[in-house]
């Protein structure tokens, strides 16, 4: 290799590194916004209105007695307005408050927002819902009322999604775990960033319940290879993978609202997913790639089925 070629390659590299860093600089992180800002950012300018906000001061009645300072919005923001001209309600959880855990108030807030959107749709006024999920699941300090709230949330999503899309966005590192992973599971679309994570049981819980041989919760690469947004997208368990960029997330949400209610929801495709599990050998531990398109094709001897094939009841 000549000197001049070396210089040229070096220059190209420097140039592409520069372009890359400029891209990063121009990117407006969605994750770094707080829950209120994230919700606000999705709406058409001047149309967002917060409901049952911090000045209404409806806090969790269960935390103070347990030595936890309650928050005036209980870590859940509800906003109404238009997105690309479409009536939408956005519900955002704050991972910074109690890990985004679902308590009595935050849970009832989400359920009520979904139910009110449902009533509007029934009245002929189309209203979509977007859930910004940063939540570890049920808030253990409110245990049974959190779990009950999650059951009600799931029910209300299923009622609303008949008439309007319910979009789950899992952007930040808190991820979406516990009972709320079922809420994401029954929604119309799931949007994830590579920083987002989705699963029923988090790594610490599995290690705690089933031992370190089952799951080593300190193994970062294992965690991301199973729960991470890239993996969930590769598996077909998330619909859209998008960078942590507010503009890209806005664009994605607009597109999904425009797309409307899918012909069939993922959680209705029982035979498809049941047969996938049935085809896998469970006698030894699975590699995260076991469910990739390629290994599915190998294990079932056919190509991966398109997601929309199953009948809808």
């Amino acid at each position, binding site marked *: 290799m000549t000197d001049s070629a070396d210089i040229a390659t070096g220059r190209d590299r420097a140039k592409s590194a520069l372009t890359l860093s400029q891209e990063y600089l121009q990117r407006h992180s969605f994750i770094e916004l707080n829950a209120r800002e994230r919700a606000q950012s999705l709406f058409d300018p001047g149309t967002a209105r917060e*409901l*049952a906000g911090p000045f*209404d001061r*409806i*806090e969790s*009645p269960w935390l103070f007695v*347990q030595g936890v300072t309650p928050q005036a919005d209980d870590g859940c923001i*509800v906003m*109404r307005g238009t997105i690309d001209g479409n009536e939408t309600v956005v519900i955002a959880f704050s991972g910074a408050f109690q890990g985004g855990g679902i308590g*009595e*108030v935050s849970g009832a807030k989400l359920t*009520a927002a979904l*139910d*009110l959107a449902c009533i509007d749709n029934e009245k002929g006024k189309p209203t979509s819902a977007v859930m910004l999920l940063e939540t570890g699941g049920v808030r*253990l*300090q*409110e*245990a*049974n*009322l959190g*779990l*009950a709230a999650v*059951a*009600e949330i*799931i029910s209300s999503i*299923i*009622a609303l999604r008949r008439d309007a899309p319910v979009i789950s966005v899992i952007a930040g590192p808190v991820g979406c775990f516990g*009972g709320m992973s*079922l*809420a*994401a*599971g*029954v929604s119309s679309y799931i949007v994830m960033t590579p920083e987002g994570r*989705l*699963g*029923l*049981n988090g790594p610490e*819980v*599995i290690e*705690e319940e089933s031992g370190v041989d*089952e799951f080593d919760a300190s193994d970062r690469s294992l965690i991301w290879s*199973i729960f991470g947004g890239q993996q969930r997208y590769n*598996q077909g*368990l998330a619909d859209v993978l998008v960078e942590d960029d507010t503009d890209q997330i806005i664009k994605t949400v607009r597109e999904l609202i425009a797309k409307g209610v899918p012909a069939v*929801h993922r*959680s*209705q*495709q*029982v*035979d498809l*997913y*049941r047969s996938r*599990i*049935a085809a896998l050998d*469970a006698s030894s531990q*699975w590699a*995260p790639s076991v*469910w990739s398109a390629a290994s599915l094709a190998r294990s079932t001897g056919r190509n991966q089925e398109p997601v929309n094939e199953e*009948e809808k*009841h």
Partner: protein
Amino acid sequence: MSNFTGIRGRIWFKALTGHEAPTPGDPPSVLTADAPIGDDNARFLCVVPDHDSRFPCASHGEVGLEQAYTLAARIREIIGADNAKDGGKKRPIIAIVDVKSQAYGRREEIGGIHLAAAASADAYATARFAGHPVISLIVGQAISGGFLTHGYQANRLIAFADKEVLIHAMHKEPAARITRRTVAQLEALAKTVTPLSYDVEDYAKLGLLYQLLHIKNPEAPSPEEISLVRDTISAAIADARQGPFDLRTRFESEAALTARKASRQIRARLEQQWNQ
């Protein structure tokens, strides 16, 4: 904590249906049977332990990938068949609940257990919205994701009242550890913070239950006790048919007026501000 999760489930499944064999082709941990109750022919579903399960983390009465998808398939079968019969009475679906928890395993997470659980909850809720009376009979444990997957979408919840019945978000020991308390501290707090309590009598105070049943011998029920349970399920079916088909009875019940005051307050505030 009971070491016999699933024993009661199987006993009551057999007592109410006369069957205890799994459906051919289904995993042995999911029992499905169609049996008469009152004037109806209902579909009964139960998850039981299967010590030879091919999924090791789902062998002691946990709800795992196979259990969740099997439940979903067996429920959707009923929805589809009754939907085809125009104007016919929708068959009741009875979930007999004795589940230790969801399955905590690596295979489960790789295989997307959250979607499996969602598919089962979806099937139960879809049945309910389609007009099927969905009744849960909680005879033992009903914990966390296991309960969300199997039973918590019912129109009416019936529970046995004794110390082996546990309805909760997490078992006592891990819940104490995660919230950095001792079990004794957790138990003391649960005396004043009702949603923390592991006592089913306290759970009943939250307003979520349709009925609490005192059964003397839940592991060896007498014919009288079995007929009491059957009558209660029949009454719940009739009540569920009156509607509503959503879950509002859980926060509109008399007990909920006090126990879920904050839920009702935030709901009212949102309703008030929605169209302002």
